[in-house]
């Protein structure tokens, strides 16, 4: 098929741009470990609140500056609802839902993932700045969706 010379130049520059974009995404994902949350572990959503470790949702210290937050998302709150860690801590969040689909987002960080019933979602983040962080649900889950949020305090 005949393609005009200028169009060839245009399409090639476009293709090169797209390839560079994809390379950046790919290198960041595969070489630097910035993969999207894609945890494969499953759980019976009807029994989520009775299944370990979600039967005892809590923030636990698991090492130097390292914490694990086992959390339940349910309409319209997260459990535990108050958590405190010192500055510089890495928190490994492990979350599942007892009912519908929820979101899990901490504004001003890159913590953002879906909580799909039947699956366990995991994400980690290091909190270098002190402050009261908002953990909010960003997927519509019902009439009280807009109040579904808890806080995580990072002390200095």
């Amino acid at each position, binding site marked *: *098929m*005949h*393609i*005009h010379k*200028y*169009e060839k130049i*245009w399409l090639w520059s*476009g*293709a090169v741009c*797209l390839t560079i*974009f*994809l390379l*950046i*995404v*790919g290198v*960041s*994902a*595969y070489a630097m470990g*910035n993969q*999207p*949350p*894609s*945890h*494969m*572990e*499953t*759980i*019976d*959503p*009807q029994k989520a609140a009775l299944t370990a470790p979600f039967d005892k949702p809590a923030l636990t210290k698991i090492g130097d500056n390292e914490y694990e937050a086992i959390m339940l998302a349910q309409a319209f709150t997260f459990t535990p609802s108050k958590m405190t860690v010192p500055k510089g801590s890495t928190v490994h969040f492990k979350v599942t839902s007892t*009912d*519908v*689909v929820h*979101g899990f*987002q*901490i*504004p*001003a960080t*890159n913590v*953002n*993932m*879906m909580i*799909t*019933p*039947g*699956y366990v*979602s995991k994400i980690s983040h290091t909190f270098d700045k002190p402050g009261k962080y*908002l953990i*909010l649900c*960003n*997927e*519509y*889950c*019902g*009439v*009280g*969706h807009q*109040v579904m*949020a808890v*806080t995580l305090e990072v002390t200095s």
Partner: protein
Amino acid sequence: MIDKRDAKLSLGFLSVSFIALFIGAIAGLLQTLVRSGTIELPLHIGYYQLLTAHGVLLALIFTTFFIVGFLYAGISKTMGALYDVPRRTAWLGFAMMTFGTILATIFILLNKATVLYTFYAPLQASPWFYVALVHVVVGSWLCAFSMWNQYYIWKRRTKNKLSPLFSYMAVMTMALWFIATLGVAATVILQFIPWSIGWVDKIDILISRTLFWYFGHPLVYFWLLPAYMCWYVVIPKIIGGKIFSDALARLSFVLFLLFSIPVGFHHQLLEPGISHSWKFFQVVLTFMVIVPSLMTAFSMFAVFETAGRKKGAKGLFGWFKVLPWKDVRFFAPMMGMLIFVPAGAGGIINASHQLNQVIHNTLWVTGHFHLTVASTVALTFFGIAYWLVPYLSGRTLTPQMNKLGIIQTIMWTVGMAFMSGAMHLVGLFGAPRRTAYTTYSDHPQAMDWVPYQAAMAIGGTILFIAILLLMYIIGYLAFKAPKGEMDFPVGEVEEEAAATPVILENWKLWVGICAALILIAYTIPFWHMIEHGPPGSTGYKFW
């Protein structure tokens, strides 16, 4: 003027489309006022109920009815009057789609289906809501079959002549729609309906989401392709130019068919149960679908420049000035086209893994598709309606209405700049989408979002006034404008353009490659979801 019976058919679809647009716009205005904290809804109307109405009526009903109506008009114009069977099938499709629309609207207004237009399980609406959606989809399939039938008969009667570009694109658009809606039909018929009636207790969430997003991304191309048809076929004629290349226009539509479907995972990047390699694979395919849009951009600007130079424009950019800026048939789609530049860039951001992590489910995304579907596509559709409605009703677009149309376009652009601009910004700060007014117990971060939400309400108000103006113009053009003959602008191909290769009309080949790509992108991860899926969920009515 096309066959009177076809004009009536097309007008039927356009009427439902504009009624849906009006109701959906009222919901939209109220949403922005609620979210900014300006008003509280009376009469127990819920914010999320409005949001459901807004999404269903605008994203699904306004678009689909407008598209089908526009395609029928163009098919009748370029291939000649519809044959009897295709026309009868079309009316049957219209009846089913309209019935489904009314039923869905009733159940949304009764607050029995406040599940938003994406109806994610295990939120469970009334079974009638899902039955209504099936009617809309199956009705649209009848329209697809009817258009293909028309094309098939036409090809046979003309002894395999090259099909008119418009009709080819219409057939392709409906092929894309049919293949895409198979996914949503499967989840609604096999999962949602039996589960909401109570025949089965549980539903598999991830499978339903995956089938939905298998449909959800090509859906946006189903909106976009008819806008591209206007750009490729109609605009060259309006600006006094020629179609740059028939073959490349067709090739871009082939590429849309191939690459717009196997990409649904980029809407599911942040969810568990899908391995990151399959996510990345579909992200790569997502980037492929940008190529035909780049081709379209080139073709359009090539048409603008050649048309301008023929008119004697000098200098590097002289041709830009001589474009018919005062003709709303050009101006409205052109604004849509220009808006598609930032809108498309935003789309690339959304599809990129790590950037998606920042903006997923924030108002940024809402801002994004208000630039794409609600500006690029909507402005192009408005631009089409300004000549198509009087054309079909045997009236004319008066200079006065043309002027009002230009004002309408400017208002839409300004209103959207406020609303979408504020959404993009506040989304970057983390404000979630699809959320009623809240300050999260006066959390300082959430308090910072309030001024942006006020800007959204200002934009929303301007947009609503623009819709009122649009309704007046369309009503005038349909019922009051002076009688006369309008032109259905169909561009001709540039003389020196190369002939169109026959292979572009080899449907078996393209549909075959399309199916192969879908199977490659989906079989293994989908099988994994079935094989390793968790127990399903019972339904919840949390509204």
